[in-house]
């Protein structure tokens, strides 16, 4: 767990971050120095001149102009030096170079919508190439937001009614947090995502491919992926097991149930058997399957049903290699741990069916959203 994880600095992954960290650590050094001076001074005087101790108290000082000047002018000069470095950094952050690649960002309660110049769109994920200056032009559709990438040390308000800008050159490939850092209502803390820094070649390919590393997955392929991810195949494999019947070739077959009734396995039946399996227990089996009611989105259910319809047939071979290659850049949660936490949070929020899907649903939804984005 992360209980004993004490990172001391955020990743430093942009040209701005390098200069930033220099100024930041200089300020840290200055602060530590003066804190020590004040703490040591206060403790030293409190002990040395504690009531009743022997100490020279003759000729006490009450005013001393040179001393006052010293501790006025030294902080002033140090302050002006820090002001200079802080301002130089600020001017750099605020002045994008001329040859920037432009990406457009729209903030709305509670998602980020990004649009690349060639028309590729994505939600809550921003793909950028390594080593090339990127300028984001941003606007809000409703309230104030702020676009914040800690690893790049950049942040800018996203304001309704006016464009704001932010620029950076990423210097390390990887995935980094995007946060909304201006309070914007109920799901403010979930209005975020990640920036994916890619090798320029990969980025070019990704962009040319309409924002995906491969062609879009069919419903069957997406369903296969969900089937594997939810570990349906642990029980429902190629053969009937003690726990569960095999689903291979189940579609349009007559199923006989424990209570003696029977049904043709159509789409409706397949869906029902996932969300409320105990309505129709196949003869010979008990109530061992978990109930997936409101655990799986309708979108995922459609994909699952599509897959089960063709399961076992040659056309349904799960495109394993494709799936893995695809999921690498688009997986939303960086770790399994985060995914399970996300799942908890989803349960806490089920009251809101229109909630922004991306961050809270498992990985596959991203592909669907990217596809949706293209269709808009």
């Amino acid at each position, binding site marked *: 767990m992360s209980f004993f994880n004490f990172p001391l600095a955020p990743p430093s992954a942009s040209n701005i971050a390098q200069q930033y960290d220099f100024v930041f650590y200089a300020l840290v050094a200055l602060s530590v120095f003066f804190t020590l001076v004040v703490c040591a001074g206060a403790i030293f005087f409190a002990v040395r001149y504690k009531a009743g101790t022997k100490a020279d108290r003759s000729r006490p000082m009450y005013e001393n102009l040179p001393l006052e000047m010293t501790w006025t002018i030294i902080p002033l000069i140090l302050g002006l030096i820090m002001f200079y470095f802080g301002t130089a950094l600020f001017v750099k952050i605020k002045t994008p170079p001329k040859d920037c690649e432009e990406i457009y960002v729209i903030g709305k309660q509670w998602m980020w919508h990004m649009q690349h110049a060639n028309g590729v769109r994505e939600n809550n994920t921003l793909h950028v190439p390594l080593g090339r200056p990127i300028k984001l032009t941003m606007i809000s559709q409703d309230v104030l937001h702020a676009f914040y990438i800690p690893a790049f040390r950049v942040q800018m308000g996203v304001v309704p009614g006016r464009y704001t800008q932010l620029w950076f050159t990423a210097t390390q490939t990887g995935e980094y947090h995007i946060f909304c850092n201006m309070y914007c209502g109920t799901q*403010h803390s979930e209005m975020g995502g990640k920036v994916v820094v890619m090798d320029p070649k990969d980025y070019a390919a990704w962009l040319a491919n309409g924002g995906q590393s491969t062609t879009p997955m069919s419903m069957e392929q997406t369903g296969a992926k969900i089937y594997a991810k939810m570990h349906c195949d642990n029980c429902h494999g190629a053969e009937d097991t003690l726990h569960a019947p095999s689903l291979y070739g189940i579609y349009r077959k007559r199923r006989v149930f424990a209570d003696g009734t029977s049904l043709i396995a159509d789409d409706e039946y397949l869906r029902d058997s996932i969300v409320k399996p105990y309505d129709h227990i196949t003869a010979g089996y008990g109530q061992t399957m978990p109930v997936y009611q409101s655990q799986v989105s309708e979108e995922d259910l459609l994909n699952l049903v599509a897959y089960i319809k063709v399961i076992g047939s040659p056309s349904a071979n799960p495109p394993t290699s494709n799936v893995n290659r695809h999921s690498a850049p688009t997986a939303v949660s960086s770790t399994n741990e985060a995914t399970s936490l996300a799942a908890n949070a989803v349960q806490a929020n089920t009251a809101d069916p229109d909630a922004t899907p991306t961050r809270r649903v498992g990985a596959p939804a991203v592909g669907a959203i990217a596809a949706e984005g293209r269709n808009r």
Partner: protein
Amino acid sequence: MSSTVISPGELKPKPPAEEPNYLNVNHTISSWLLTGDHKRIALLYLVSTSFFFFLGSIAAGLIRYELTSPAGVVLESDTYNKVFTSHGVIMVFTFLVVAIPAIFGNFLVPLMIGARDLAFPRLNLASWYMYMTGGTLILAGMVFGGVDTGWTFYTPYSSMYSNTQVSMVIIGIFIAGFSTITTGINFVVTIHKMRAPGMTWFRLPLFIWAMYATSLMMILATPVVAITLMLVVYERTFKLPIFSPELGGDPVLFQHLFWFYSHPAVYIMILPAFAVVSELIANFSRKRIFGYHFVAFSSLAIAGLGFLVWGHHMFVSSQSMYESIVFSLISFLVAVPSAIKIFNWMATMYKGNVHLQSPMIYAIAFLMIFTVGGLTGLFLGAAGTDVHLTATYFVVAHFHYVMVGGTMLAFLGALHYWWPKMTGRMFSDGIARVNAVIVFVGFNLTFFPQFIVGWLGMPRRYHYYYFAPEFQAYHIMSTLGASVLGLGFILPAFYLTQSLFTGKKASANPWGAHGLEWETSSPPPTSNFLETPIVMDEVYDFDPVSEHARDLRNLQEAEEWKKAHDGMDNLPEEDN
């Protein structure tokens, strides 16, 4: 001690005749609720602000508990948002802005300058009623639906999008604001017109100087926030187009107007703390404050410059780059008078006779914590470094170092220091000293981890952080610290209350301090002084050498007392 022998069968013993003082002069409820006595009004404020502080602390505890887990513990996001808003609104508008001026300023301004009361006693009482009306409305808003905008009420969220009790809470703040303005007017007039003969401007205790600077800011800044917040209500209610771009307004205008008040408000909260600390350090070092004029004028410099730095809250808000640079420069300038104060306080202890009683421990803790709070302000005043840190937990830690570590510690120091004067009773200084250490440790454990987690990029006002579990360890540390800090706030409520019943009677000047308030009895009579005092000596007129001789005498007496009561450890309370 009475030496008369009372046999068991005798009539019930007469209570020892007490000097009439402002507490025992009459006991009816109306004598409290309709009083014009600044000392009684100060106690009304003490009780009511403590109540609001208690509510604000509960909200703080809930926030800390909720953040121990990356996906929350008990609250829904909407509830969490209401809780952190309640914490901010209650602490800022009904505690921090009010507490030290309205309690200690009210109690001490007339006493310190040798006046019988404030210039406008009825206005003073009216200010308490306005405060209570405002506070009640704020609480009503929180009970009937809550408010979820954050204490900053940024538009257009507050004016167009939030479906909570924004208007009711804002009207509460508006009314409470008038209480602040009237208190400020009262202080300014009193300090100008009612000083005792001989109390020249440069014989004024530094407490008075800082209260004067605070009052000026209260009078000049509070109307601006009152108007600004009312404009939010107008836009919510009548769709008056001011801030919302949908209606043709400018959302960033709100931030300018809001911070034009709220940055000075930061100084309204911290200058009174400076006022208290100047008193504590001079009196417990038994030495005249070092660089009196510099400390006095640095308060005024802070008050003046404090009006010109509001834009440093808005470096990433879309204000112009050049604007930000100017605000950044002035913010660095305002750091200088704060540094002057800190160095002068340290120099005051040099060649003094430092008595490490509980108020002084709070003062020294203040010195250390405020230094960190001030220095981390440089990170935020420098526009470049602010870009990454703004609105993260770094900012949260910074302003809690100033507001809790600064104002709250000074508040506790003041409460302990003037408690005998206000109540006429002594508390156990041993427990109080231990408590000061608990507060210091708990405070740092709570808020120091927040600097780091903010530097890592944890945004403030976040309910969940399951997508960034690397923040969790620091949040858990912070919550542990908050439990310790909570203990440090609860204990005084017990031992101070207990002192009212079992505490030793306080003499007129139990700490050996110097100042007019210590020359009248504890608690003072309703008219403060039986005769109008005439001030002949300088402020903090201690002589370190003779003070040292007196300390040695006291120590020797204590030693002898210990021998006479051999084996007993508890020394008699230090008394003069």
